[in-house]
């Protein structure tokens, strides 16, 4: 663990530890685990909803600025209450039944989408000790959990009894499974570099040198590929073919109304946040403050900024980048989209993986070249 010889008043790990010891001293271990589980459950639900509402507001505002509009500005100062009002509105809308649709699958689809994004959300380390799921196979678990969502999308399209939904879901499926490969290989490149799949260890290992710089050329290629494929997996930006409104109405969620539509909307925004935060954790050092070897005074000062502020700051930058891409490029055609993945990204990725292995084995990563400065242990 981290060896810090001063107290950090703004970190939450102290509170977490005292709650844990309080529960363990007053209850049997089983009950203590249960109560902790309930607390984590409520906390993660609240964080999920707050991040979704904030992201919807931020997206609308930034989009407006990109297009020289004002964006939401009526409710509250600068329209900050707008997305809460929208959520209440969506809650009181009727959930419409579609004739001859497959009702069971129709209602099962939002479960897959939301549960998959929750499981992927759980592995994100938001700060010191702020992580719901910390498996030693974290990266692999993230890849597995995030790919369950596509089942929900395919079910939604299939069960809606709507030809546009069907086409949208098929496109989404083809796009998602293709780009899933690239995302997995890009993450694997970094696993080769750092030698661990546990997210907390990944962050600790990037104390003096982010993985983005540690593996230099190979890491930067992996980062760019991961950002492209994450963008494509969330069906946004130039890759929004599954919901291309001029061709397919709204794609796979055309027939969903009220809150069932709201879940797809929520999951889309959260998936954007999740891939940006995984990119932050894996490539940009996660919650670790900026540490420059040699400048001990600066390093000490940086630790006084709480870890979650660093995490959300870095993630926010990547989200802004993603929005920038979304509103800057025209939509791709489906054959161009699949060609980009299968003829460019995948071969580049396979070669890149081997280059990274060579970098690791010959010790030419930055930490290998300057072990006295950059080694973490």
């Amino acid at each position, binding site marked *: 663990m981290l060896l810090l010889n001063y107290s950090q008043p703004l970190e939450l790990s102290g509170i977490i530890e005292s709650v844990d010891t309080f529960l363990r001293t007053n209850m049997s271990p089983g009950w203590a685990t249960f109560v902790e589980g309930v607390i984590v459950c409520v906390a993660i639900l609240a964080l999920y909803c707050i991040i979704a509402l904030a992201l919807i507001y931020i997206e609308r505002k930034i989009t407006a600025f990109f297009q020289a509009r004002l964006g939401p500005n009526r409710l509250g100062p600068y329209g900050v209450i707008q997305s809460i009002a929208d959520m209440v509105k969506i809650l009181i809308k009727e*959930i419409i039944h579609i004739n001859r649709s497959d009702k069971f699958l129709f209602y099962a689809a939002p479960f897959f989408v939301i549960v998959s994004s929750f499981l992927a959300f759980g592995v994100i380390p938001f700060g010191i000790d702020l992580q719901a799921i910390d498996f030693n196979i974290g990266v692999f678990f993230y890849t597995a959990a995030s790919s369950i969502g596509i089942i929900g999308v395919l079910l939604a399209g299939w069960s809606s009894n709507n030809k546009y939904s069907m086409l949208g879901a098929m496109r989404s499926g083809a796009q998602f499974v293709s780009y899933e490969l690239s995302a997995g290989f890009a993450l694997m490149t970094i696993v080769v570099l750092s030698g661990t799949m546990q997210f907390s260890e990944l962050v600790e290992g990037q104390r003096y040198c982010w993985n983005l710089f540690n593996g230099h050329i190979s890491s930067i290629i992996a980062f760019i590929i991961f950002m492209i494929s994450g963008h494509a997996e969330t069906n946004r930006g130039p890759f929004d073919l599954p919901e291309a409104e001029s061709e397919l109405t709204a794609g796979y969620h055309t027939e969903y109304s009220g809150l069932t539509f709201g879940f797809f909307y929520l999951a889309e925004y959260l998936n954007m946040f999740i891939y940006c935060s995984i990119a932050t954790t894996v490539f940009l050092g996660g919650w670790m403050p900026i540490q420059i070897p040699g400048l001990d005074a600066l390093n000490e000062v940086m630790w006084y900024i709480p870890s979650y502020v660093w995490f959300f700051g870095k993630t926010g930058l990547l989200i802004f980048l993603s929005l920038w891409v979304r509103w800057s490029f025209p939509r791709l055609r489906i054959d161009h989209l699949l060609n980009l993945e299968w003829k460019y990204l995948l071969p580049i990725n396979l070669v890149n993986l081997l280059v990274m292995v060579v970098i690791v084995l010959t010790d030419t990563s930055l930490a290998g070249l300057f072990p006295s400065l950059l080694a973490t242990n």
Partner: protein
Amino acid sequence: MSNLAQFLTVLIAGLVLVIAGVTIAKLISPISKNFQKGEPYECGLPTHGTSWMQFRVGYYLYAILFLMFDVETIFLFPWSTVVRSLGIMGLVSILIFITILGLGLAYAWRKGILKWM
């Protein structure tokens, strides 16, 4: 908490959100029955037949290709954590593995599966 408890906690949180959300929405939202409202929305035109129809085989071929590489991912992830200790033999063996799969992709490419017709 143990791994299983961590996993179950997050899984239950996800299920709670959907179940509670749909239940509350059903309770407080208005309900009005109308046959027209249940028609699938296909831009105003009445729908013809069912939408469970044949679709392009191209999607299926991409799914098959994906399966090939996804299985490869399962084999490569454990390898990638220990590549440091495997040394040069790890590189050589995985080079053979990836070359065979690369040949598979090249074959599919050559046969025109990657061409969207």
